């Protein structure tokens, strides 16, 4: 087996890992702030891809403006959904959050299947990012390198905002103890809306980055979100940096498995999840809640 093949699969793994990272980071923010395991994250990912396709197809707006417009649009829709629907169930058991977001996922997927049918639609790689670099030992397509770099930038920017800015500090305070934060005069409900927006915007951005690699289809997010759930169980929802690292590592492991044992590649993450649960039920970076 050539190193070319191994490195190629590792690259694919790294790309998938970056998508897992953006998705699980969004999940972690939302879960921390709202206590909701947002299974609709898959629908927001799909919407991100579809919005980019619509912008290009219907308005002629290309990839780079979409890089700002798409997360913004997905985030705004998410904030509207939080205000209209999620807000009403915070007092209930956390399970209702999962059920409600499952309903939202089902609804949005159904809507897009109705409007666009299930066939995949191609989204072209932007002209600036075509081609690639010959590294000597392997050929690195420019777009794939870009995806890894861009998603890491998204993740690190989010991490910096949460860890290093006053806004992030308030956000963390609201996650830790919402009542006390409120007593200090912080508008926690508005913060929750904002947090949900940021969380789903990350999924939307992941959808945009994925559009040129996987074709755009209404069902692209459903299976992904289950893998991301497994990633989150492995990493635990406690630490933001932890969830990014776990995601990338699992993506790479999945890529490695595709070289060694291709039939089992899509099961690897679930098997790792079982192993982690048996040894450390709270997850690698987790704490019991």
């Amino acid at each position, binding site marked *: 087996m050539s190193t070319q093949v191994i490195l190629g699969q590792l690259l694919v793994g790294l790309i998938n890992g970056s998508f897992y990272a953006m998705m699980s980071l969004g999940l972690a923010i939302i879960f921390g702030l709202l206590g909701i*395991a947002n299974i609709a994250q898959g629908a927001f990912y799909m919407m991100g891809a579809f919005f980019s396709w619509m912008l290009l197809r219907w308005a002629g707006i290309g990839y780079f403006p979409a890089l700002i417009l798409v997360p913004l649009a997905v985030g705004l829709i998410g904030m509207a959904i939080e205000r209209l629907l999620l807000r009403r169930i915070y007092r209930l058991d956390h*399970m*209702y959050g999962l*059920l409600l977001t*499952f*309903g939202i996922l089902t609804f949005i997927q159904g809507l897009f*299947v109705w409007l666009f049918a299930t066939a995949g639609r191609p989204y072209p790689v932007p002209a600036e990012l075509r081609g690639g670099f010959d590294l000597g030992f392997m050929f690195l397509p420019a777009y794939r390198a870009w995806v890894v770099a861009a998603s890491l930038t998204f993740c690190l920017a989010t991490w910096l905002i949460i860890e290093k800015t006053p806004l992030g500090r308030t956000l963390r305070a609201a996650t830790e103890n919402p009542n006390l934060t409120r007593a200090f005069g912080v508008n926690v409900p508005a913060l929750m809306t904002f947090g949900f927006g940021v969380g789903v915007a990350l999924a939307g951005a992941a959808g945009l980055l994925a559009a040129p690699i996987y074709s755009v289809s209404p069902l692209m997010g459903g299976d992904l979100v289950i893998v991301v759930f497994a990633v989150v169980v492995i990493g635990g929802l406690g630490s933001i940096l932890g969830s990014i690292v776990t995601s990338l590592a699992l993506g790479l492991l999945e890529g490695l498995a595709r070289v060694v044992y291709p*039939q089992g590649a899509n099961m690897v993450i679930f098997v790792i999840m079982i192993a982690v649960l048996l040894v450390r039920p709270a997850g690698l970076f987790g704490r019991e809640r």
Partner: protein
Amino acid sequence: MSALPQAMVARAGWAVLVAALLVAPWLFYPLFLVKVLCYALFACAFNLLLGTCGLMSFGHAAFFGSAAYIAGHAAKEWGLPFEAAMLCAVGGASAIGAVFGYISIRRQGIYFAMITLALAQLIYFLALQLPFTHAEDGLTAIPRGKVLGLFPLDDNMVLYYTTAVIFLGGFSLVHLVLNSTFGQVVRAVRDNEMRAVSLGFEVNRFKLLAFTLSAAIAGLAGANKAIAFKLATLVDVHWSTSGNVVLMTLLGGLGTLFGPVAGAIFFVALENYLADSGLPVQLVIGAIVIGCILLFRRGLVGEIENLLGMLARRSKKS
């Protein structure tokens, strides 16, 4: 005070249920009813775990679907009679249930749901890879065989009444378990785990038992469905099937005895109705679920029980 109307509702419910089961095939198309009963039993199995342990599984398709495959394979490739094929399937589903239960009961709440969802996805990918499931094509033309070697299941009425007996058996079992001392212990675990532990109960053993039993009954439903419709496919193990059973139970009433049955009837009927309308099922179901959670969280049966309870209290006051 509220115990009285609930007991009345339950007794009336049983009478209506048995009568309805007897009469139904003369009013509705038997195969439609068979589908309803299979999903109703599936939802009851899910509800058993939720009602006793308070654990909401998002992966019950794993047991339903793998039992469907096992029953189909046993009947078609091994040529086993109906009863033996069903038994193999239930055994297989219980074994998978025991393993999955052992892994997943380590966590609760949201994490439990996410873990069961992920574990079920493992079964989905296995079904995609293993040779005997025929991947995308699924197992087709499964022979129905004969009940007790005498009555051919290809007769729709025989098929219906066999399914009805299986359903009633499974349903009564769920009812018995919910009302047994075992059920009480598991409910005690749900309500206050620390206290149950301090009273000397081996909490995890009870949870595991409830999980395995729930998987076995889900398997019974899946095997019945595979034989009745001569078909076991990837849809049976897909996460959307796991989701559907959660939604059925939610619409009918989480944690009520008849809720899952009512939910399954509503769900299958809606699916049949929408099939001709051109509207996608997902869109409508999604909207109904959102509305249900926001407006009538108790579900169909739960709201009726609540209403009757309120009426009884009011009549007592006046």
